[in-house]
């Protein structure tokens, strides 16, 4: 019987089908970070349990660490130091690899795991972080879990999971200039709502997907959770294999050859049946930006703030009214008329080298509008060093951006550094929730190109006006 890629990977990882209707799924890799992983590790210690395969478990410092140059265990986040030091102690106790603050491999978990070759095509990988779906961009079956489930995975090497339904989202056609995979995922969620994939795992397919770089695929899959998907996956291809080759934790020698032979078979059968399918003509997608407090509030950058009176039902209307009030917006205002206070490039969505190159291409020879706080936080120490080797740090700094150490940073406000009260921020991150980036901060999600263009313009700006 023909099978989808997701079904194949799922079936290959089933240890047992349990009486309660769930499957016991074998977990190949587990990644932890100092905010949630610490709690899981501590709980395992208290219960007197053991990690089954510590050599398959990795941890990094990203959520709480400061990103100022010269940082140490002291953080602006109240009690942040406890998390950092507890992570270090627990990692030693558990015998797991930790990419600590001064380790050149440190960075945001979902940037580091592909970079280090820990996430591989076809592996199951879980992490107590909702954006673990990012790794589907490499063809990994990866999803986010809570810390109790992380304990379960650490101790048993398995999770009990009900198999989701499977949806294919096909992006056919080419991408216009100034349009990136961030715009594709915002377009998808804006069109089909934040609950559009509830109950489904997604396979992204189609010509536009094949054309994307691996880093762009990671960005696309990153926001699958914002679409309510269990996760997303893209079949590995030659680009994927080229990307993985030579990475520190990737297989070598004979194991590499065996892995490649296996990876080349990881596709959905041509006659596989999906439970649902969405087809999008990629040529129709413009640069996107959000106006409200849900990723589904995404519209083309040429658009206007929508009118709640046109909402499909009362609850949607109420939430739109609330979002307009929170964001201090009036229906009918052109998005490109909105002045901004700050611009942020960073996060597991858009902080990889290709993102920084695109932003730098727009910033080169230009200046950020005076009074705008503009910050770039590379996704990993390795990304930072690679960018510096190309001179991108100087482009950012000469334009007026701060250039930081890597970490999750101001993607969310954890009591430490944040954007100011009610400030309007154009941001390359994934969540525009109320107070996500600071006290009553007004976040507008967009691609790094749009963030860079907006920082220069001093208002939300169409990146196409700034591309050579």
């Amino acid at each position, binding site marked *: 019987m023909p099978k989808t890629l997701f079904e194949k990977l799922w079936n290959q990882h089933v*240890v*047992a089908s*349990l009486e*309660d*209707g*769930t499957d016991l799924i*074998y977990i190949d890799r587990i990644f932890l970070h100092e905010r*949630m992983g610490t*709690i899981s590790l501590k709980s395992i210690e208290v219960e007197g349990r053991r990690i089954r395969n510590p*050599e*398959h478990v990795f941890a990094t410092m990203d959520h709480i660490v400061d990103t100022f140059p010269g940082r140490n265990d002291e953080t602006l*986040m*109240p*009690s942040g130091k*406890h*998390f950092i030091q507890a992570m270090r102690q627990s990692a030693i106790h558990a015998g797991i690899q930790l990419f600590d603050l001064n380790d050149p491999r440190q960075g945001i978990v979902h940037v580091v795991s592909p970079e280090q070759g820990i996430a*591989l095509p076809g*592996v199951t990988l879980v992490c*107590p*972080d*909702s954006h673990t779906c990012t790794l589907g961009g490499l063809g990994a079956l990866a999803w*986010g*879990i*809570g810390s*109790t*489930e992380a304990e*379960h995975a650490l*101790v*048993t090497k*398995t999770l*009990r999971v*009900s198999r989701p339904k499977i949806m294919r989202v096909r992006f056919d056609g080419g991408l216009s200039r100034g349009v990136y995979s961030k715009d594709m995922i915002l377009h998808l969620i804006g069109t089909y709502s*934040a*609950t559009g994939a*509830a109950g489904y795992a997604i396979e992204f397919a189609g010509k536009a997907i094949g054309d994307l770089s691996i880093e762009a695929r990671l960005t696309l899959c990153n926001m699958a*959770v*914002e679409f*309510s998907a269990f996760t997303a996956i893209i079949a590995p291809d030659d680009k994927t294999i080229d990307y993985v080759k030579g990475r*520190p934790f990737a*297989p*070598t020698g004979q*194991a*590499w050859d065996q*892995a490649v032979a*296996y990876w080349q078979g990881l596709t959905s059968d041509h006659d596989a049946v999906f439970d649902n399918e969405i087809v999008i003509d990629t040529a129709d997608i413009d640069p996107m930006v959000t106006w409200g*407090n849900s990723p*589904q509030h995404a519209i083309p950058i040429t658009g206007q703030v929508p009118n709640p009176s046109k909402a499909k039902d009362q*609850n*949607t209307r*109420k*939430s739109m009214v*609330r979002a307009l009030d929170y964001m201090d917006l009036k229906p009918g205002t052109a998005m490109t008329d909105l002045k901004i206070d700050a611009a942020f490039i960073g996060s597991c969505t858009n902080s990889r080298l290709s993102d920084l190159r695109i932003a730098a291409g727009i910033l080169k020879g230009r200046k950020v509008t005076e009074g705008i706080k503009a910050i770039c936080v590379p996704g990993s120490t390795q990304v930072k060093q690679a960018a510096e080797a190309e001179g991108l740090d100087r482009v950012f700094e000469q334009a007026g951006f701060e250039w930081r150490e890597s970490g999750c940073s101001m993607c*969310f*406000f*954890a*009591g430490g550094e944040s954007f100011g009260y009610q400030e309007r921020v154009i941001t390359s991150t994934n*969540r525009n929730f*109320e*107070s996500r980036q600071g*006290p009553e901060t007004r976040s507008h999600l967009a691609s790094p190109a749009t963030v860079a263009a907006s920082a220069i313009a001093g208002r939300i700006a169409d990146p196409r006006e700034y591309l050579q």
Partner: protein
Amino acid sequence: MEKFIEHDGIAAPLLRINVDTDAIIPSRELKRVSKEGFGEGLFAGWRYVAQDSREPNPDFVLNKPQYQGASILLAGVNFGCGSSREHAVWALKEFGIRSVIAPSFGAIFYNNCIRNGLLPIVLSDDIVSELATQVEQQVEQDPPSRLIHIDLHQGLVTAPNGDTYAFDIDPGPRDMLLNGLDMIGLTLQHKAEIDAFQKQDRERRPWIYAVPNS
């Protein structure tokens, strides 16, 4: 884990859609390397008059006199979307919430509820709105009139007016809640199968097991 079999409680309506786990407990409240001590941070951004204050905002539903002691939350579509932080469930639980009734839930939040003895019930938008309307209309009456009865064995929610609504829940989560199971202990009973799988898998996918110690 605490069992969930039956429960009677005051229900409080919070029907906003897409209530995310950042709203349920903001990041700035996650100050402890612990599963405890988060009840005070529940809905901190809405529940208090200012960010660093603990002065109750009188307009927030859980601060209203008629909803004191609420143990059931009536919620909107996609409740608990966003961050995987289990603190959202720990905070609800510590505050005293035993069940959330909503048209849909964030998937990770849903799983986190099951693993902490908090029952997430999926009922249609119309039914949740009807329950909320009943609760709100009877606000002037005695507290018992705002009580909702939940029976997980039978899969039934009984509204204040006596109407009953059946809900579905997968057998796995249902068993976990009814019996308060320790899932790790239970899964370790499958150790022989996990061992056998791993042994076979080493042959099939050797690269998974050849991890460099760099």
